[in-house]
Each structure stands twice: as structure tokens, then as C-alpha cells.
């Protein structure tokens, strides 16, 4: 499988770059970020509010397998259809604070497009923590599996 999604995270910087090329026309890619019903489908989240316009705000809520609800919210600073969205992102009840996201949408040809997400965190330490989260969760899951197997014997 080709690695379509790329992460650039230089040491000692409080930002990262996520890039991805899509087999989708630019308009369809952009639409995936604008319409609540579509966002719900691919993000696997409930969209409580999504005002896709300058000075609009957004609010999502996910439910984990244990039934706990997790909220996310932010405001939209810049909204240019088929071109860019500048917004903030904040996880409720998390120690990470707000992050600033610059989303740029680019047409490659009639059927393909590219998304560049430039994310800026409050500090290098926070960026590194967020990068490590899925890794830590992976370790945790592996650990739980080992415990399950051991407790069966």
C-alpha cells in the first residue's frame, strides 16, 4: 500500500505538517469539510455545530467504546471555498490547550486534489505529547491484550 498521508514533524518545533493526496476532485474534498452530515460519516463524530464561514464556530462530540463522550470545539478564522480554512481546535478536558490549524486545499488535476494541514501548538512539548498519544494508546492496547492472554491461563 502506498503511503498517501505524510507527517512532517521536525525536532524542536511546535508545529507539524500533514499532507495527503486524494483521488477526488477539489470540490468534493472541500465539501467533506463543510457539510455536517458528511463530516459525521468520515470523522465518526457527532456534529453539534458547524458554521462554515468566517468567524463561525464548530463543535463536535465523539463517544468512545466505553460510552464516554469527548467534546471538541473551535472557531473558524478564515473560510475561502475550495481554497482554505483557518481554524482553531481544542479538545475539552484535555491539558493541551488550543491549536491553530491552516488547511489548504489544492487541485492537482480534474480528478485529484491535495490537502495540506499546518498545525501549530502552544509549545514543542505539547506537540510531542500529541504526536505520542496514538503510540501510547497502541502500547496500552498491546499491554491489555497481553494481560488478557495471561489471565486466561
Amino acid at each position, binding site marked *: 500500500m502506498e*503511503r*498517501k*498521508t*505524510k*507527517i512532517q*514533524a521536525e*525536532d524542536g518545533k511546535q508545529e507539524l505538517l*500533514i499532507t*495527503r493526496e*486524494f*483521488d*477526488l476532485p477539489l470540490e*468534493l*474534498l472541500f*465539501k*467533506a469539510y463543510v457539510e455536517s452530515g*458528511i463530516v459525521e*460519516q*468520515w*470523522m*465518526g463524530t457527532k456534529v453539534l455545530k458547524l458554521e462554515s464561514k468566517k468567524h463561525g464556530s464548530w463543535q463536535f462530540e465523539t463517544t468512545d467504546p466505553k460510552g464516554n463522550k469527548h467534546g471538541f470545539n473551535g472557531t473558524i478564522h478564515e473560510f475561502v471555498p475550495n481554497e482554505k480554512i483557518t481554524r482553531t481546535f481544542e479538545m475539552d478536558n484535555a491539558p493541551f490547550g488550543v491549536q491553530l490549524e491552516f488547511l489548504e486545499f489544492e487541485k492537482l488535476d480534474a480528478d485529484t486534489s491535495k*490537502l495540506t494541514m499546518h498545525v501549530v501548538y502552544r509549545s514543542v512539548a505539547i506537540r*510531542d*505529547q*500529541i*504526536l*505520542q*498519544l*496514538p*503510540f*501510547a*494508546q*497502541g*502500547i*496500552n492496547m*498491546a*499491554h491489555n491484550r*497481553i*494481560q488478557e492472554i495471561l489471565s486466561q491461563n
Partner: protein
Amino acid sequence: MNLRRDVFQAIADPTRRAILLLVASQSMTAGAIASNFDTARPTVSKHLQILTECELLEQEQNGREISYHLNAKKMKEVADFIEPFRKMWDDRFNKLEAVMKQHKTR
């Protein structure tokens, strides 16, 4: 080569992985780490020593106490710790692509 093998042996142990998980989000003192385990304190100290020796953990003098935090650079080297983060976004974007392809044909 020897060091790398030691690093993989270090993360092969479930208690040591659990320690890495604990300090992934914040640096912690040996006492705070030990309080998360039923294992005897010297056993936890031994695990901390192994993790520090192979540079997965870094020590930091904090007044009278020593606290430990994850050495992100080393983790990247041995386990490519960014890969799960990349995978998470890749899965998410794959879903987006699939949803929008469906949307197009409708």
C-alpha cells in the same frame, strides 16, 4: 547493534511498556511510577534503570527527586513512534475518500 537489541528487549516487557505509557504524557518521579504497580519498588527501579540505560527514558533532577520522561528521539529510532499518529490520519482520510466517492456516484 547490541544496543538496538537491548532496546527491543526492553520494550518486549509488559511492565516496561506500561512505564513508557505512563511517562508518555508527563514526566514522573520514580515513586509516582511505582505507585501504579503492585510490583515491589526495587523491581520497578530495576525496570527504570534498564529503560534509562537504553535511553528510552531520560532522568531529570527535580529538587531531591529524580523524575523520568520519555526520550522521544530514541522512541522514534526504535519504534517509529510517529507511525501510529500517521496511521490514524491515514485511516481517517481513507474514510473521507471512500465517503466522498460514494457521494459522487449518488
